């Protein structure tokens, strides 16, 4: 057992923290108000290699592994949830699918510019009738010579409004359904037939683009099939597992920031002549949440270590679901507590905790609702005992 970070990972954390504090923190309120993470921020993140943090060096990545990626997400999550979400959708699910299942040509052509931040990725799975029930997608891809023709659409696609590359899931054989009948495609958004239909007006992570995409006779060359025809669901589920782990890491950062804010205001705000820190209900609440955050930290980095040491079997999928589910709930609890300790300041848009409160709520919903995570965890547990459960 060794619970220390390597010198390289410690250096990476210093690099990300400095970037987040100097380049992102001053803009965080404006990112929320103006509904945009500046392209400049993404460009700079790319320039210093962070958008390829976990990808191999031969494809323009930093090669810092999943642990490095979790460090990036934790540190960004600590400062600005919109920026973390945008980066997470880009690296963690969009580009990740290409990293996991792309062939060398696809990686050279697509992963390299994505890792360098020259292009931005999105992940196109969810449809209006296929949310938790992802296997229920209707977007259709029909083979036509050397191409596939895509028709349909996607909703709630993070980065969808401005991404250059979208990995899209489409039905290639309706008779086979999710197992064998669904294929992943790499789509360039400047191709004819690709349309951004609308941008959502969200309660939080307002700096991110959440778009509805429409495909009308969108022609995709066969060489852009990601993985094997019919095995798209497997590719996407593997990407989602990675995304769930790193979303847990972003939540860890958000929870940590909330705890720090709660401690600051508990030391600063006085009621009835004493600082709130002297009130037992505040002490208890801080003790509880600090414990949960430590448990979350251990979980997240243990699972990252599993990925970095090649342990990505069935148990990984279950643990990644735990990272996402527990992380999002710990972050929500930490932020709720911190808001309460702020008093009136906590419910005004003048303080970052108000934004954190709006931002945090989506983590219990997207990338698989926490209900779906519980289904994943429970089915893994019961499978060990020979019980197959259905969602």
């Amino acid at each position, binding site marked *: 057992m060794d619970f220390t970070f390597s010198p390289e990972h410690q250096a990476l954390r210093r690099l990300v923290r400095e970037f987040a504090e100097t380049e992102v923190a001053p803009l965080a309120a404006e990112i929320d108000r103006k509904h945009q993470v500046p392209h400049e921020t993404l460009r700079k993140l790319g320039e210093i290699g962070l958008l390829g943090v976990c990808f191999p060096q031969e494809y323009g990545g930093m090669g810092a592994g999943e642990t490095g990626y979790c460090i990036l997400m934790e540190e960004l999550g600590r400062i600005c949830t919109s920026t973390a979400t945008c980066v997470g959708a880009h690296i963690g699910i969009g580009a990740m699918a290409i990293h996991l299942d792309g062939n060398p040509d696809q990686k050279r052509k697509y992963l390299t510019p994505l890792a360098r931040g020259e292009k931005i990725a999105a992940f196109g799975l969810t449809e209006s009738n296929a949310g938790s029930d992802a296997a229920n997608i209707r977007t259709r891809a029909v083979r036509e010579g050397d191409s596939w023709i895509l028709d349909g659409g996607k909703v709630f696609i993070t980065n969808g409004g401005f991404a250059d590359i979208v990995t899209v899931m489409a039905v290639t054989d309706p008779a086979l359904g999710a197992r064998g009948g669904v294929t992943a495609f790499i789509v360039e958004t400047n191709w004819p037939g690709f349309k951004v239909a609308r941008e959502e007006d969200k309660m939080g992570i307002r700096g991110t683009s959440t778009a509805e995409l429409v495909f009308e006779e969108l022609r995709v060359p066969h060489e852009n099939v990601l993985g094997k025809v019919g095995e798209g669901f497997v590719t996407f589920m593997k990407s989602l597992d990675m995304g769930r782990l790193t979303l847990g890491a972003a939540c860890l950062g958000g929870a940590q920031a909330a705890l720090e804010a709660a401690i600051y205001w508990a030391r600063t705000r006085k009621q009835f002549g004493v600082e709130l820190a002297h009130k037992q*209900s505040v002490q208890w609440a801080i003790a509880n949440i600090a414990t949960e955050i430590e448990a979350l930290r251990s979980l997240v980095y243990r699972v990252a270590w599993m990925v970095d040491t090649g342990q990505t079997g069935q148990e990984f999928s279950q643990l990644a679901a735990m990272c996402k589910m527990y992380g999002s709930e710990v972050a929500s609890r930490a932020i709720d507590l911190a808001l309460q300790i702020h008093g*009136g300041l906590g419910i005004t848009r003048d303080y970052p905790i108000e934004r954190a409160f709006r931002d945090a709520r989506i983590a219990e*919903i997207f990338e698989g*609702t926490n*209900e779906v995570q519980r289904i994943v965890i429970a089915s893994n547990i019961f499978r060990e005992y020979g019980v197959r459960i259905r969602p």
Partner: protein
Amino acid sequence: MDFALSEEQRMFRDMFRNFAAKEVAPRADEIDHAEMLPKEMLRKAVDQGFLGATIPEDYYGAALDNVSYVLLLENLSAACASLAVTIAAHVSQVAMSVLDFGTDTQKEEWLPAMAGGEAIGAFALSEPDAGSDMLALETRARYEGDEAVLDGVKTWVTNGELAGLFLVFARGPQGVDAYLVPRDTPGLTVGYREPTLGLRSATFNTVYLEGCRVPQSYRLGRPGEGAAVAQRAVDRMAVALGAVGLGLAESSVDVAAQYATERVQFGVPIGQKQAIQNYVANAHAETEALRYLVYRAAWLMDQGEDFSVDASLVKAFGARMARSVTNWMLQVLGGYGFMEDYPMARKYRDARVLGIIGGPTEIHAFRVAQAIFAAKDLQIAP
């Protein structure tokens, strides 16, 4: 025991529900985005008599009993919590303070104007360094002959943007005084409006008092009686905010349950899933528990009984339940719950604010504990 509403109360409830559904609900999202109640909506509320809800007929009020009044707030809140809070502050904090503590002249001067919506009431108690702690008030009232001169800064003044009449609390020579200060009084300036997380169309402002002179006859109650005026107002508002929380909770259950019958995943409406059933069942239980605490507190008020501890119970429990119910019901809507063009996100933001305004949950929980321990001869300090 009798848990039935009277025929009159039922009639009022249906009327409030219809008004909320027809006049308010269709515009609630737009109102939230605009962060301001439209003037014509307030006008309609005035025409219905809502601004004079519990003001007696002698003063041209609607003379509602308190149970009917919480039914009003509950039903308005189900459509638009900002409107309900605006009316609650006007009626519960200001108009009822005038009725309970005012002289005949004060009542005749202000209550008809408040019932008619010509003067909206605003409640100016909190200060930058004094929220729940009345002993820490720094606003001063200096007596000069027949006048009192007010100096200080008030924060989180509910209805600050709209008000014609401010109920201001200040430390005078004999303790805390309460003053009725018309908006146009020289020395009173309405300042910064808080950009709030929720209740975005209710207004909360900073109010500056700089050498603000009012006749002594504008004082509400005797010198030093201001703390009692404030406490009564806080108690009344606590019940009112419980009703606002109730409206948010019950309308959220309604929205989520409807969605769960329509949203199909894994081949069935999600209402068929046990997790969703549990969310809805628990939320409904919490809502009904809150309902009867709110109605009971209002009934105690109508009986003329002391309702101060019950008010705190309602406020602490109500804010917690509204938070918990809106949170779970938002989860039922999944991604749609997070979108501002559906009502759940607004209800969730509105509900969270209830844990802070009108005294945070902790202070109300303290007052409940204080009463429990006092019955066992243990005095506790906040």
